[in-house]
């Protein structure tokens, strides 16, 4: 909503109060200022001049050489390219030094050899119109040498307000004036009107939509002359950012901006019959509107209808079938009140979110219709002539706000305690009264009755806000509330530790969108059952069931960027929820909280590129499975996660929905208890091709965080001390030649079992394939550490245990030692 300072000053005395001051007052009272703009900006050195002579430019056919007079002093020579002016015209001259609204700086210049002491301006250059043919020609009686801003009535500042949905009353000049007046301790100057008598109407009004039609005031005027609006009207509408249409329509808009009450003028000669009613639309009925569109009505829409058809979409827009045109002489003025939600649904349903609909939606002043239509009648007679031939009104007998006044019971003590202030009873009463809130203070509990235009005031907290914003939020003390229970502390949650551990492994946390395109998910063999009904784009169509597609998008975007000649390392992770449909459920609200969806938090990561962040060629080995395994294992170790087991991925059996993402031969399953909770391994080579990756050694993991969380230490201090061996350990190394596809943890597992109780640790420390080892075989070296926490070991008993281990390998795997 735009507020013209000049216009505002008609409703509250503002002499000596600057626009900046008004802006501050409104901000402090809760009306946000989006911008402040001076209409005379750029007009500072633009004045009115008369063209004395217009001659041809000697050096250019299309240019003229004008002599202009500012009314005093020597005439000035101006070079001008326009063709629409002649000697005697009064025009606008941008003088040397002016910076006109389109940004052009005016300097003394020579154009094709002729000096020009300024520029004659067009409306386009002054940003008064989108385009202009030729320069601005002013009326012949315009005084010379005057600032153009004065002549055009542009000495004004426009405050652009952002009105919150609760303050529909401030969508009007008078509403804003009330706020300013209350702050300045002044009175609102509401224009005087000659009130209509609501008699003698030829057309009667009828409320025919139950509780959705609340009031209908009508007024008939004959003998109007429709035409362009007078300047006072035009200028005000322009200051509101509204285009002038004709004097009658402009008056209806003027009235709406002034009072907040939307009204409509019909060409009375186009209305059929002798009754206008507010009724519900007839399903399928067509209604042509003023914006040259046609809507097909629904039975939930509210319309104004004559004897034969709908003539307006109630509260939103008038009908094209009863439009006021240049030939109109008889007017019918409608001033009505409709149910706010019905107007909102109609306006939104038909995409007619007009200024009028906005005001109805946010609530109008139910007690002001008589004033508004009387004022409208005065404005129209002033701007377009004519005289009233009759008027009428119909009010719903059980109008919710007019039949009973809202009462708010409260105590001044409550206000003080709730706000934490010491404002006195007298001040509280005075503040409420200044806002036209009636207060009965005769009993211990006070009773407040808000004015009819304040639909937002209904509970005692609302009154507290009125007090707070009037005394000023800056006057409220700042206190820290006392603790009435022991705080649970600020120890970081486990998920934060989980992130820190990954950061310590050299991974960068990223954030991917929770939605992605269905086609992108398809590349990964994934689908989503959760579709956004109104996506902004196809890219953001469905909720993701896995974090990997989003992470891979980031991976690829990095690949496509320039990082010089260094090979690119991408090491990204994320811990966020993924979204799936509950099995067998539909996505719809059931009860208050069930959505038919499940959110599972996942940890996902992608690593690729060089193992070290070094530019030295010798260090540029690329990460492989072992690096990824280290990331995952260290993560579990540092989280203190218990009961995690790793297995080779059986891609036909476990987590099969990942079968297009992970390489079946280079991927591990992660088991937590009885559940397979995630995978880590190489990207599937086919996916790498599909995604056009530069290299296919990209390593991925996705693990169910909810499952991991349950098995992890909940706090840092949860670790318990374990003593280490005090007695010396003994080691034995074994070299074996085994089938190349043997999983090494079988060897260590058997060693620990067979070497019990002395064998404490068994680990692989070398693997070799190639000559002289036979094809299909590998040489593998196992180290076993023997210990007894209570004593030193003897050679013989270690030798015995070692033999048990060799026997175990032979028995279970048929393996003979190499040496």
């Amino acid at each position, binding site marked *: 909503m735009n507020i013209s300072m000049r216009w505002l000053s008609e409703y509250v005395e503002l002499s000596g109060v600057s626009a900046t001051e008004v802006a501050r007052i409104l901000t402090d009272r809760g009306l946000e200022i989006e911008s402040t703009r001076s209409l005379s900006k750029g007009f500072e050195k633009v004045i009115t001049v008369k063209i004395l002579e217009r001659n041809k430019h000697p050096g250019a056919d299309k240019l003229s050489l004008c002599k202009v007079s500012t009314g005093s002093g020597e005439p000035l020579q101006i070079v001008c390219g326009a063709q629409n002016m002649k000697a005697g015209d009064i025009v606008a001259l941008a003088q040397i030094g002016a910076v006109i609204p389109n940004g052009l700086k005016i300097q003394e210049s020579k154009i094709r050899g002729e000096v020009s002491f300024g520029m004659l301006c067009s409306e386009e250059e002054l940003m008064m119109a989108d385009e202009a043919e030729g320069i601005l020609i002013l009326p012949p009686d315009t005084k010379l040498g005057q600032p153009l801003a004065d002549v055009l009535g542009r000495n004004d500042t426009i405050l652009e307000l952002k009105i919150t949905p609760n303050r529909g009353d401030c969508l009007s000049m008078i509403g804003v004036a009330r706020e300013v007046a209350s702050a300045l301790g002044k009175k609102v100057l509401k224009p005087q009107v000659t009130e209509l008598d609501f008699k003698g109407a030829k057309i009667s009004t009828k409320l025919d939509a139950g509780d959705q039609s609340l009031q209908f005031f009508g007024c008939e005027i004959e003998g109007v002359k429709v035409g362009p609006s007078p300047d006072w009207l035009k200028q005000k509408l322009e200051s509101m950012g509204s285009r002038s249409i004709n004097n009658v329509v402009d008056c209806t808009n003027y009235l709406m901006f002034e009072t907040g009450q939307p009204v409509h003028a019909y060409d009375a000669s186009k209305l059929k019959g002798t009754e206008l009613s507010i009724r519900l639309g007839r399903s399928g009925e067509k209604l042509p509107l003023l914006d040259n569109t046609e809507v097909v009505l629904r039975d939930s829409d509210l319309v104004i209808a004559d004897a034969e058809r709908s003539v307006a979409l109630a509260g939103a827009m008038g009908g094209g079938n009863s439009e006021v045109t240049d030939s109109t002489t008889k007017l019918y003025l409608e001033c009505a009140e409709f149910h706010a939600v019905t107007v909102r649904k109609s306006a939104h349903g038909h995409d007619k979110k007009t200024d009028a609909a906005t005001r109805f939606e946010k609530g109008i002043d139910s007690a002001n219709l008589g004033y508004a239509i009387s004022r409208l009648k005065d404005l129209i007679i002033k701007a377009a002539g004519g005289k009233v031939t009759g008027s009428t009104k119909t009010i719903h007998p059980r109008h919710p706000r007019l039949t009973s006044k809202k009462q708010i019971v409260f105590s001044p003590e409550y206000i003080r305690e709730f706000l934490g202030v010491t404002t006195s009873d007298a001040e509280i009463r005075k503040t409420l009264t200044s806002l036209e809130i009636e207060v009965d203070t005769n009993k211990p509990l006070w009773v407040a009755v808000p004015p009819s235009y304040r639909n937002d005031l209904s509970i005692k907290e609302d009154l507290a806000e009125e007090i707070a914003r009037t005394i000023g939020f800056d006057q409220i003390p700042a206190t820290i509330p006392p603790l009435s229970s022991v*705080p649970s502390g600020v120890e970081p949650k486990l998920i934060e530790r989980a992130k820190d551990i990954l950061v310590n492994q050299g991974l960068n946390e990223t954030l991917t969108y929770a939605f992605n395109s269905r086609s992108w998910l398809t590349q990964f063999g994934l689908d989503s059952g959760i579709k956004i009904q109104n996506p902004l784009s196809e890219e953001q169509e469905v909720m993701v069931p896995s974090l990997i597609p989003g992470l891979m998008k980031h991976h690829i975007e990095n690949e496509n960027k320039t990082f010089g000649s260094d090979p690119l390392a991408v090491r990204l992770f994320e811990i966020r929820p993924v979204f799936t449909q509950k099995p067998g459920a539909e996505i719809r609200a059931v009860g208050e909280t069930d959505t038919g969806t499940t959110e599972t938090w996942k940890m996902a990561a992608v690593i690729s590129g060089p193992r070290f962040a070094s530019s030295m060629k010798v260090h540029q080995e690329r990460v492989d499975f072992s690096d990824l395994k280290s990331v995952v294992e260290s993560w579990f170790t540092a989280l203190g996660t218990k009961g995690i087991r790793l297995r080779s991925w059986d891609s036909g059996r476990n987590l099969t929905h990942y079968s297009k993402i992970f390489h079946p031969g280079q991927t591990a399953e992660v088991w937590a208890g009885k559940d397979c909770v995630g995978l880590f391994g190489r990207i599937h080579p086919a996916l790498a091709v599909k995604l056009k990756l530069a290299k296919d050694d990209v390593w991925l993991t996705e693990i169910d965080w909810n499952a991991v969380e349950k098995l992890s230490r909940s706090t840092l201090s949860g670790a318990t001390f374990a003593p280490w061996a005090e007695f010396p350990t003994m080691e034995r190394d074994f070299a074996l030649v085994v089938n190349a596809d043997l999983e090494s943890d079988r060897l260590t597992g058997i060693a620990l079992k067979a070497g019990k109780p002395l064998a404490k640790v068994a680990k692989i420390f070398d693997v070799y394939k190639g000559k002289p080892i036979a094809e299909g075989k590998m040489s593998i070296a196992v180290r076993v550490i023997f210990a007894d926490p209570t004593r030193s070991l003897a050679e013989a008993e270690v030798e015995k245990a070692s033999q048990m281990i060799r026997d175990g390998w032979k028995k279970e795997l048929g393996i003979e030692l190499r040496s």
Partner: protein
Amino acid sequence: MSDLIGKLNSLEGEVLAQIAAAKSSDALEQIRVSVLGKKGSLSEVLRGLGSVDAAERPKIGAVSNQVKAKVEEALSRAKETLGSAEINAKIAKEKIDITLPARSLHLGSLHPVTQTVRKITHILGKIGFDLTTGPEIETDFMNFEAVNIPKDHPARDMQDTFFVGPGVVLRTQTSPVQMRAMREQKAPIRILCPGAVYRADNDATHSPMFHQIEGLWVDKGVRFSDLKGTLQFFAQELFGSDVKIRLRPSYFPFVEPGCEVDVSCFKCGGRDEKCSICKGTGWLEILGAGMVHPRLFEVAGYNPNEVSGFAFGLGIERIAMLLHHIPDLRLMFQGDVRFLKQFL
């Protein structure tokens, strides 16, 4: 006898000369073994002692000890000199170029959104807030109706909502988490709810997904002034002890009174008309807040006549952009490692 002493003396002379001429620690060690060892030349000389008068023996023994001591002293002095020369030579040979690039490990980093959430929760944790989270797909009831935004209310236009099914939306705010918390526990309640929220809006300053953190404090006798004090504490901890806050009355359906909160520009303090942070206004809008609307207490099963409370919500990306001078919101969601690696 004199013969033996003479031999000892000449041995001493020879050995000292050898020591003086030795060029390495190894050579000295060889001399030590050849002279003082079991089969060394000193033992050799002393083997002649058997043929000497018993009365003469102590004298010869004394001379022999003197020779031994002299040799040992000369050896150790020479060893020291030679040793340090050798170490110096080794040091000189082993000099490396420390300016060569390191075999560096990759450094990980937390996303600025996470870092900002941590900063905020750390600050507010100090005065008693705890963390809680809730689902991102919500019912219309929890996201809107339960927090006093009924169907067909103009306040619904304040947020462009993504719908995923009948009565199911992507939450537009973290307020439903408040409501869930109040339904699960009795007052006093002091919680922070960080998380992703969604609005159908996408341009340089709006992302369809972004993060909010919402604070809620409900207890007996909580005042509007407590909200102001809490926010002032928060702003000063986050932006510096000299910043001021400004509360402007505003409207959010779930609070009454409601306000928008500005913090004075921590960069220029309002003294720079061309300030890149505050654009010369001196103020930065950082959050929305207010006293919990009694309607929410009713929905939560609290008695609005017994408890009161305040709530506030802020956009995390906005705070992160201010704190880290990030020029464009979109950088947050692009995963560009050149961006991510800056926030170590």
